[in-house]
């Protein structure tokens, strides 16, 4: 065999994950998924390969540029999902006759963006989305805020703010300054860049698109010290939507301290029409870790009926980075809590039986595959960070005992073999 080897490379902005990382990620995904299920959301999946027209033309200029699209061998335009909201709106339009409306779904899938890869930005990454379609009630918005708070706290993130605003409100304010409808979307895109470009440049860019009273508009939109003050400042415009949302959220147990009403927060995507969210961790420079909002007209792009939807995406990769930075996830190279060693051929029967009783009791375990010296077996456990090792040599077998060694301390304990399962279960970190 002398064939030329294929280089085992992967594409820029994509990743291979080692077991230790996948174990970590799955743990976190599980927490998020359980929380979604707690609030009554059900899972769906949508295709990765989509007709290009499903995906394109929904995200604004910037999003359009970042969408992967190509022609397949049959010349059809294909696009990969840029987010999970648009594919879901399409899914709902195609299937609503078979779904309970209002429909609450969660979806944890990969999405693709042709970004320049950098910290916290990959080309292929996971999003964890929840959406409710078919209800205009602001209870939906409040519930989503509640889920954001519950999930982040459960993950150990407690320095976040849910920035909220309303597209309806921004539109009304812009209108009150005489901004014509045609300039609203370009303006929102400029306002959305506020953290990147600063006020002066914003005013400049606004002027470039023919808005000369940019400074006034911006000062009107500037948030005050408290949600209430901001609300009061904007009371001439209709703030009742946000007020009702915040009242529902408060009744749902969402403390006002998590919420920050920021009239300048715009979310660049074109499809939002009502309340919008953006969640940031205050002591981190990662940017938004969750984002979402109300979209009234997305489904009607795919069907004749009109269904309003609202949802939020948890940026899984950024959340993982945050948790890692803060050591809120532990590294596990294996899922096993126990390695059952095999002393020699004659002890194998006992070892297999111990292994069986551990797994039958629901304790993640594995048996050493081979007849190597015990030291080598210990090294294997050490490498895989398996906390407990079970040893049954001739002495133990004779005395009907078993020795359990903790790999981190090296301490050994010999107990009656009938107590093995209870002994391991009794450790708080073994459960």
């Amino acid at each position: 065999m002398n064939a030329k080897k294929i280089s085992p490379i992967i594409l820029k902005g994509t990743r291979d994950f080692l077991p230790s990382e996948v174990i970590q990620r799955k743990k976190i995904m599980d927490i998020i998924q359980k929380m979604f299920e707690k609030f009554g959301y059900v899972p769906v999946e949508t295709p990765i390969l989509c007709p290009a027209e499903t995906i394109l033309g929904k995200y604004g200029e910037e999003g359009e540029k970042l969408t992967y699209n190509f022609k397949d061998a049959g010349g059809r335009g294909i696009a990969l999902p840029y987010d999970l909201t648009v594919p879901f709106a399409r899914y709902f339009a195609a299937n609503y006759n078979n779904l309970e409306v209002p429909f609450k779904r969660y979806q944890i899938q990969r999405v693709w963006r042709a970004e320049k890869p950098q910290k916290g930005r990959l080309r292929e990454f996971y999003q964890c989305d929840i959406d409710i379609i078919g209800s205009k009630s602001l209870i939906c918005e409040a519930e989503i805020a509640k889920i954001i708070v519950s999930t982040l706290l459960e993950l150990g993130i407690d320095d976040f703010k849910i920035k909220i605003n309303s597209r309806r409100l921004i539109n009304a304010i812009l209108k009150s300054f005489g901004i014509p409808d045609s300039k609203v979307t370009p303006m929102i895109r400029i306002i959305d860049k506020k953290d990147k470009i600063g006020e002066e440049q914003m005013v400049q860019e606004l002027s470039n698109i023919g808005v000369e009273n940019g400074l006034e508009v911006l000062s009107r939109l500037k948030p005050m010290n408290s949600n209430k003050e901001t609300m009061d400042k904007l009371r001439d415009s209709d703030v009742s939507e946000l007020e009702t949302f915040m009242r529902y959220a408060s009744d749902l147990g969402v403390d006002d301290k998590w919420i920050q009403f920021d009239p300048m927060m715009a979310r660049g995507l074109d499809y939002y029409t009502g309340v919008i969210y953006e969640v940031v961790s205050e002591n981190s420079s990662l940017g938004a870790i969750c984002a979402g909002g109300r979209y009234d007209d997305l489904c009607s792009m795919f069907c004749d009926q009109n269904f309003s939807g609202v949802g939020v995406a948890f940026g899984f990769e950024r959340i993982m980075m945050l948790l890692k930075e803060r050591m809120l996830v532990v590294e596990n190279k294996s899922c096993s809590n126990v390695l059952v060693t095999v002393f020699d051929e004659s002890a194998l029967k006992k070892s297999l039986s111990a292994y069986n009783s551990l797994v039958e009791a629901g304790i993640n375990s594995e048996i050493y595959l081979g007849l190597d010296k015990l030291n080598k077996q210990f090294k294997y456990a050490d490498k895989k960070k398996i906390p407990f090792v079970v040893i049954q040599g001739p002495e133990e077998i004779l005395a009907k005992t078993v020795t359990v060694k903790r790999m981190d301390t090296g301490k050994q304990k010999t107990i009656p073999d009938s107590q093995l399962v209870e002994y391991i279960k009794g450790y708080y970190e073994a459960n």
Partner: protein
Amino acid sequence: MKPIRIAIQNKGRLKEESVEFLKSFGLKILNSDRGLIGKCEGQNVEILYVRHGDIPVYVQSGAADFGIVGANVLNERKFYVKKNKSLGFGKCKLVIAVPKNSGIKTISDLEGERIATSYPNSLKRFLKENEINASIIEVRGSVEISPLLGLSDAICDITQTGETLKENGLKKIIDIFESEACLIQNGFSDKEFLN
């Protein structure tokens, strides 16, 4: 008007003193034969006699307005009750004890050992705080005899005078925390206690 309901122990070490405490507010508790609910002469107060561990459950659910319960019970499980005040009686300790001739002498000797207890959560917290990894063997009662039977190497239990420990050949090596009777109240209730 609904009576004020106070839950106290139906039997056990806090019962007598709880009754005395209530009497000190001038309550005249009428003895009922089967004793689940005691009425009070001339006052709209009822005494509920329930299992010690259930007292916070009654109070949390609002079935009782107040309860008298050992801090050890509150420490073991999370209840949504307000602690009104400590009452100064029913003092006891949650301790770790080992057989007299045991090689276990300090906290760190507990590493890897088996500790029997009916207070698994309190013990777990204590071990975690002290970074000790040990196996917690949960038993409901008669904790003191478990080392003798080869079930455990140490026990974690409530003791008042230390007599029971001694009788079972055990000696205390660590105090985990001191407990006494507490007056508790429903988390949502702002009722005044007797005056």
